[in-house]
Every structure is written in C-alpha cells, then in structure tokens.
C-alpha cells in the first residue's frame, strides 16, 4: 500500500504532508513528556521486525499479494503515539533507502499506514472486553488495514477528480478494488498480529503489560501512561 511518486495530485500529496507533520508534532510532544527508557528497546525491535515483515508479501489469490502493515501490532504493544512514531521511522527508511513509496507521498503513506493504522488498531482492540481479547486483536488488525486502504482509495479518487483524470484513479475503480483486496489482506494481518501477540503473552507477558501512552486518563489492567495527565 506504499503510494509511489506521481500517482496523487500534488495538492492531495501536499495536504498529506501537512496533516502528517501536524500528527508527528503532536505525537513527538506527547512522547517527549511520557516515553520511558524501557520502551526504547521494544520500539526499536518492533520497528526493525515490522520492516522485515513488510518485505515478505504473501499471495491472496488472483495474482495479488499483501504484506503485514504492523501498525496495529505496534500500537497494541506501545500505544498509538509511540506506535505511529515506529511506523514513521519504518516508512522514512523504506522511502529514502529503498525507494519503497514516493517522497512526495510520504505524508499520505504515514497517514494511511501509520496514523489510521495505529489509532484504529489500538482503540478497536481496547473496545473489546478481556475475554474476547483475541477477537479484539484480530478485528483491530483487520480494520486498521481496511480503513487505511479506504483512505488511500479516497485519496486516489480525490486526486482523480481534482486533476480531471491526470492523477489518481476514478472512485468507481479505486474504492471497490482497494477495499476488496485489502479486506482479504487484512485477514492475513489479523492472523499474524493475533499469532504474534498470543505468542508474546506466553513467552514474554511483561511485554504486554508495559505501560502504553494514550491521550486519556490512566486506566485498564495495563496501567497506561496518560499523555495529557
């Protein structure tokens, strides 16, 4: 789902950059006040692990493949702000070192895979009661990918409309294609994310109990670090 250069209308790409910078400034300010030393090894390992996992595309049929996005995984383990920062580091290295995703589309790629993925993943997972935790993780990961792809499809359609067809893809093609492919890819994301978190709960349960950084008051069994407290 990495948008390349030249696909989006320049105005849509610029809006993506502006929105992404606003999100990053807010996330950095919150993390400045709340991040703890013990978060750092997990942040770094998660970022690096998600990077290599994103290289491993899996077939979904019809000559199409998908790969783990990892935003829900990062957000569930670290909280949505730290998760979004992890995704930002991955996307910047992918773009600048490997040319995966265009520089002009980096803002949109961050919004679709980092911001939407992490916040959807985290809050959907939190909405499920403890006894349905596995179902909650699966739903969170699936929805994170699905909503990210829907956002990408809307950006494609907006680019097409604003440029009179010079950029993007018309809505009747972009929206069904992107959402159908990613509804299937999201199943893979859900299975892998649930599998990793169930595995971690058995081999390293303290990792799941690490304080998360959220915007609300401290709550829940994990005793979260409230970013605005």
């Amino acid at each position, binding site marked *: 789902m990495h948008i390349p250069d030249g*696909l989006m209308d320049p105005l849509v790409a610029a809006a993506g950059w502006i929105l992404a910078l606003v999100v990053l400034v807010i996330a950095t300010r919150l993390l400045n006040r709340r991040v703890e030393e013990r978060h*750092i090894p997990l*942040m770094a390992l998660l970022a690096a692990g998600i990077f290599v996992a994103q290289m491993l595309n899996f077939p979904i049929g019809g000559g*199409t493949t998908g790969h783990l996005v990892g935003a829900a995984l990062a957000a569930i383990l670290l909280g949505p702000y730290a998760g979004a920062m992890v995704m930002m580091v991955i996307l*910047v290295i992918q773009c600048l070192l490997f040319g995966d995703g265009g520089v002009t589309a980096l803002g949109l790629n961050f919004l679709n895979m980092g911001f939407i993925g992490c916040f959807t993943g985290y809050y959907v997972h939190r909405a499920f009661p403890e006894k349905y935790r596995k179902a909650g993780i699966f739903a969170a990961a699936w929805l994170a990918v699905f909503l990210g792809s829907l956002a990408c499809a809307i950006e494609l359609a907006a680019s097409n409309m604003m440029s009179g067809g010079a950029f993007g*893809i018309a809505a009747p093609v972009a929206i069904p294609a992107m959402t159908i492919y990613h509804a299937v890819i999201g199943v893979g994301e859900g299975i892998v994310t649930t599998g990793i978190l169930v595995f971690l709960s058995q081999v390293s349960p303290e990792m799941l109990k690490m304080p998360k950084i959220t915007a609300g008051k401290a709550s829940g069994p994990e005793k979260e670090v409230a970013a605005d407290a």
Partner: protein
Amino acid sequence: MHSRQMLKVVAAIFAAFAVGLVFYFIFSAAFGDGLEKTMENAGVEEQEPVYKAPLSYGDNYLIALVMGILGFAAVLGCAFLFGKLLVKKSP
C-alpha cells in the same frame, strides 16, 4: 529488555525472515500488492520517482536477504536513537 534477550529476539527475527523469504520468492515475488493491482486494473503506470533511492530490495534471495538485514539494522538504529532523544528531552 536485557541485551541477551534482545540478541535472542534479533536471531529469531532473522531466522523467520530467512525462511519467509524463501516462500516469498516461490509464491509472491512475481505479483504486485493491492495498490499495484488496483493501478494495473485502472491502466495507471508507475511514474519515475522524484527521489532515486540508493538501494532496492533486490530480485533474488541473497540480495533480498542482505537488504533485509541492512534495512533491519538501519531501522533498529534510527528507532533506538529517536527513542533516546525523546527520553533525554523528558523532564
């Protein structure tokens, strides 16, 4: 997380990556992802990038393995340094 534990996790990720890459080249390498397939359906071709990256993921197992390890190290280092900067700035 202790450094010994970190080394074990890194080794496990590399092992999983090395095995996963085999399946990637058998089943997926020839095909595009969801966005690339959508572009193909719409008859949209990928444009020349504005910025030319120095590396690529490679089109064979060995190069992809090396690039994966290189990217892993780059992301690990950047995320670690970024995290350190955030902690140092904390009051």
